[in-house]
């Protein structure tokens, strides 16, 4: 929050601004989240029930994993519109490969499961690699390239399945990955925590992470400083594609079949929303994945709260839209005076 500090040193000592400073320092997100949590728990007895909390955390995990990848791409100055389609593609590819492998091999199920997961992750990484190569080699805008791969990946997913769910995966895959629990929490939550921690480490402590900031902040300066742009740009898209594929696999294990309808535009837009509400600048160079993960949690809690409060599902999007714009507008307002014209 360096921007908040500069602002606080600059904008006077008036005691009436103490509150504002506090808000600026810890950010709006935790405050908004606290309001939603307290408000909803007063109004609905189910909100803080164990089942609901676990459910919220699980759904937030999926979103947070995707949003981490999305955030990395946006920090490098790009965009990944294909993540939703990659979720669907990875789900279908995983299920198909796993079903085929378990039918062909017949041996220990772990082999078939490994083949399926590898195929699913591979499909996501392949899409990411394609995105990254197009963006970095041909210098085409990430928005358009991933708009194209979004359509293509969704098409391939539908083509592979004809829109029909794919069954035939080993039962132990669904039991072990989709529905197993550890200390009362589903596996997806631990995976999400591991991904977030790994990404925090990558962002803070690795050359790759630091270079991604440098490239997003000022590409020319990065070039002049001797950073090779290409591999790092490709890397961000590969990470994003791989993480989207991971979510595809986790969702496949949860629902027990490979479906081309998983993910989709809604998930893609939500991942961008989470990244942006989490303070990632669309101009590149700014953003931290742990805040993005909190934003993903916030969006999930908000959706859950609107459901529990019996807000008409047709009106819910209006709330989500208004809150999204409000959150970002306030954030923009709080750092307005820093660099921009």
């Amino acid at each position, binding site marked *: 929050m360096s921007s908040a500090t500069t602002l606080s040193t600059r904008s006077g000592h008036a005691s009436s601004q103490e509150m504002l400073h506090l808000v600026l320092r810890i950010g709006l997100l935790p405050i908004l989240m606290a309001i939603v949590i307290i408000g909803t728990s007063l109004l609905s007895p189910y909100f803080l029930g164990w089942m609901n909390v676990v459910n919220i955390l699980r759904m937030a995990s999926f979103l947070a994993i995707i949003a981490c990848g999305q955030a990395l791409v946006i920090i490098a*100055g790009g965009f990944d*519109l294909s993540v939703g389609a990659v979720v669907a593609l990875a789900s279908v590819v995983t299920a198909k490969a796993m079903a085929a492998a378990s039918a062909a091999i017949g041996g220990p199920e772990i082999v078939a499961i490994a083949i399926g997961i590898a195929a699913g992750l591979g499909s996501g990484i392949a899409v990411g690699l394609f995105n990254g190569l*197009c963006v970095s080699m*041909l*210098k*085409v*805008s990430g*928005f*358009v*390239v991933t*708009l*194209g*791969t*979004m*359509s*293509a*990946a*969704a*098409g*391939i997913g*539908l*083509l592979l399945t*004809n829109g029909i769910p794919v069954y035939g995966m080993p039962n132990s895959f669904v039991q072990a990955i989709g529905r197993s629990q550890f200390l009362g929490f589903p596996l997806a939550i631990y995976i999400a925590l591991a991904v977030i921690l790994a990404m925090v480490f990558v962002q803070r402590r690795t050359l790759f992470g630091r270079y991604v900031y440098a490239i997003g*902040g*000022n*590409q*020319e300066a990065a070039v002049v400083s001797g950073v090779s742009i290409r591999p790092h740009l490709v890397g961000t898209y590969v990470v994003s594609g791989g993480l989207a594929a991971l979510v595809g696999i986790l969702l496949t294990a949860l629902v027990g079949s490979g479906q081309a309808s998983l993910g989709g*535009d809604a998930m893609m*837009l939500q991942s*961008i*929303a989470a990244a*942006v509400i989490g303070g990632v600048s*669309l*101009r*590149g*160079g700014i953003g931290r994945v742990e805040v993005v993960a909190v934003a993903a949690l916030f969006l999930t809690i908000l959706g859950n709260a609107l459901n529990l409060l019996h807000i*008409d599902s*047709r*009106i*819910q*999007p*209006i*709330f*989500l*839209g*208004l809150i*999204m*714009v409000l959150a*970002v*507008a306030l954030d*923009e*307002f709080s750092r*307005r005076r820093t660099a*921009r*014209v």
Partner: protein
Amino acid sequence: MSDANLTATGKAPGLEGKAGGERPSARASGLSFGNTWLRKLALPIALVALLGGFALADDRILTSYNLLNIAQQASYLALFAMAQMVVILTRGFDLSLGPTVSMVSVGAALAMMGMGGGEANGLVVVAAAILAGFALAVACGLFNGVVVALLGVSPLVATLGSMNIAIGVATTISDGRPVQGVPATFSQTFYTGSILGLPIAIVIAIVVGGALAFVLSRTVFGRSLYIIGTNPQAAAVAGIPVKRLLVLAYILCSALAALGALMMTARTGSGEPNLGGTLSLQSIAAAVVGGTSLAGGRGGVATAVLGALFITILSNGMNLTRIDGYVQMIVLGAIVILGVVLDRLRLDTR
């Protein structure tokens, strides 16, 4: 592209360029003059080649009936692509375009029902539909513009928010069901009618396209949009009221989308709460394939119309040659990427 870089290299934006891309963009300055003709003609040539290729595969493609059909289909997408192009020129885009179309469709149909539907005076009913539709669209555009220009929120988030809001409004006021009973006068006005033998949709697209081309190339408002997109700082320094014009650009975008929405409502004969569907991304794809630059400042009516024609011809040809719908999605994705790659290569050729 960081803002700092653009300030450093961006030249004072020239005013000589027409709707095409004669003006070198900040990125390509100095390399592209020799290829002006190539750049301008590449897409028309690709269009003709595409038509020719499909014509070899199926002889129904080049019948006058089908060509007229293509033109009519393309006129809807062309309107949406033009709408999108106006804001893309200013380095923005409008993700709420599709839901705006749904909202306008439902709102206009409800207004017509409220005025008595088929029984009332035809002109009054049509006027009510137009008023209601444009009022909703202007409200949405105003919201987008104010949030982008005055609050400084990025267009992506602003229109992502209004997209959700418009979806909510469309499904709420229609109860999630199609609004039936669009009177014949309305269909006559926006769909079945014809002028000089041309279907009304084509006529509207041509008139609007001409007017928009005039506005963009011959008015202070239009030229200012190019300057804002090329270099916002320079525009502000030059005394252009950037914020006000940005708001106007978003309103214009939504208003054009509303016109297309009224035409589509007349075609389907009912107000549909999910009429817009994938139109947001489709319109961006059409504008960009045609050569509108997402970096801002480059594009025009021609790029939007060409892009819309290209995508329409492609899907019409693939339909007639019975290419699987899922394969069509893959092809469309490949074409979008190919379009920008070619655009990039043309810019880079020395």
